[in-house]
């Protein structure tokens, strides 16, 4: 992997980490709801957001794979 590819990979991983960060925080919100610290409605919204973010993360990972495929036009190799 050359330097340019590595830089691109870093950007892709950064983008994939964003939904993971959101998922973690939403999970914390659900823990608080189960403790009775916030309403259960907030937990339901958080669960929906987790599902959305999982799809987004999966999409980002697919893009990373596609971009690093040997025959990809994005791959300078």
């Amino acid at each position, binding site marked *: 992997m050359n330097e340019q590819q590595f830089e691109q990979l870093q950007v892709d991983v950064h983008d994939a980490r*964003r939904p993971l960060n*959101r998922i*973690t*925080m939403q999970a*914390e919100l659900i823990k608080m709801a189960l403790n*009775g610290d916030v309403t259960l409605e907030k937990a339901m919204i958080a669960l929906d957001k987790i599902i959305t973010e999982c799809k987004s993360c999966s999409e980002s990972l697919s893009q990373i794979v596609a971009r690093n495929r040997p025959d990809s036009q994005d791959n300078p190799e």
Partner: protein
Amino acid sequence: MLTVLLVDDDTEFLDVACTIIEFLGHEVLTATNLEEARDWVKKETFDHILLDFMLPDGSGLHLLESLPEKSPTHVTLITGHPSVRGIIKDLCGPKVDYLVKPIQREDIEQVLSRKSSARSSPNAKKPAFTKHFGHLIGESACMHELYKLIGRVSKTQANVMLLGESGAGKEVVAAAIHQASESEGPYVATNCGAFSKELIGSELFGHEKGAFTGAVGKKAGVFEQAENGTLFLDEITEMPIDMQPNLLRVLENKVVIRVGGTKTIPVNCRVVSATNRSMEEIAQSKVLREDIYFRLAVFPITIPPLRERKDDIPMLAEYFIHQLNEENGTQYQWQSSQLEQLSAYDWPGNIRELRHFVHRAAIMSDPQSSTLDLPKTIESPFAKKQNLSSGLKAGRTIEEVEKELIYATLEKVDGNKTTAAEMLGISTKTLYNRLHAYGDLSASDK
């Protein structure tokens, strides 16, 4: 409470992180880019800034240049990669640290409590305490039942009356109800037993300038202060009976008239009241008008005494000693035999008595050692006196007090009637006669 600035371009993350930081008891302001963050820093002084490393209009590090040279603000950079750690250490010095995404609640909690944790030993184990509704500690079945009730009532606007023994934590439960309600307004607490008849009107409803000698300015009462929030009226049964119609009028009409004023002021708050008297006692002693009781006790909650939740005693003792360690830089630790000793005692003064006992133990112990020296005796003379005096209230008959004394003595000697009679200074025959008269002795016992 800290004032925190949270800077991140991810609004969804901002939203949840704000909820968590506010729940932890801090005030939080947000910015989604460097420019907004710089504006905040010019206008406000922050105790702590949580700062995303990569912002749409530049690196978060540029914000550090906007901070005054000897600023007390602590900065935590939020980064996606741990390799940034080295750069941060070299560039920013000890007042700046970092968090790596994805971030958990504990991470936020840890960086915001950095000041206190820095004082304690880095090797000291940090115990985890779950504070239900941000205030309540305890995992016993009766506490979980209490959490369920708090969760239910917090979703409504109903007035709550808290019943529980002295020291059981009524004010803490009131604060928990306020926290769970997520109301916009503040939590305001006052003690109805602490004011004279002349002053309680002014405390509750406020006064206008010149309303009475010493009223040099106008003052908002606690009902006004708690607008859209929660008003906690402690020791409600100690409120003078002739002031109660005024309180009833406020509860019914949701308006107050300040002492010496004529204007009606609309008020809107949940009233959480508390008393250490039982429902039966309230009804019998007539310390609270019936109409007020039904207005205040729409949802009565009884807080269990500590002796009914003994499983929580070790956890509470750990929590109190942890707090004292944090405050004083000590490293005291309980031994399991000591926790067993604490659990065996009944704590008539409840959690307040336990907390003071732990404090006393910490004062008595050697601060260089981790061993706690417990006082020889746990009994609180005040709690004992309180128990005894309950039997000696005016209005009770000599027969009633005598009966109570006989049963208390029998309990003390495990039912041994000969020993009990000796202690009471009566013959065994007299004791049997009394028990027989109470209908508590079968013919075979004679």
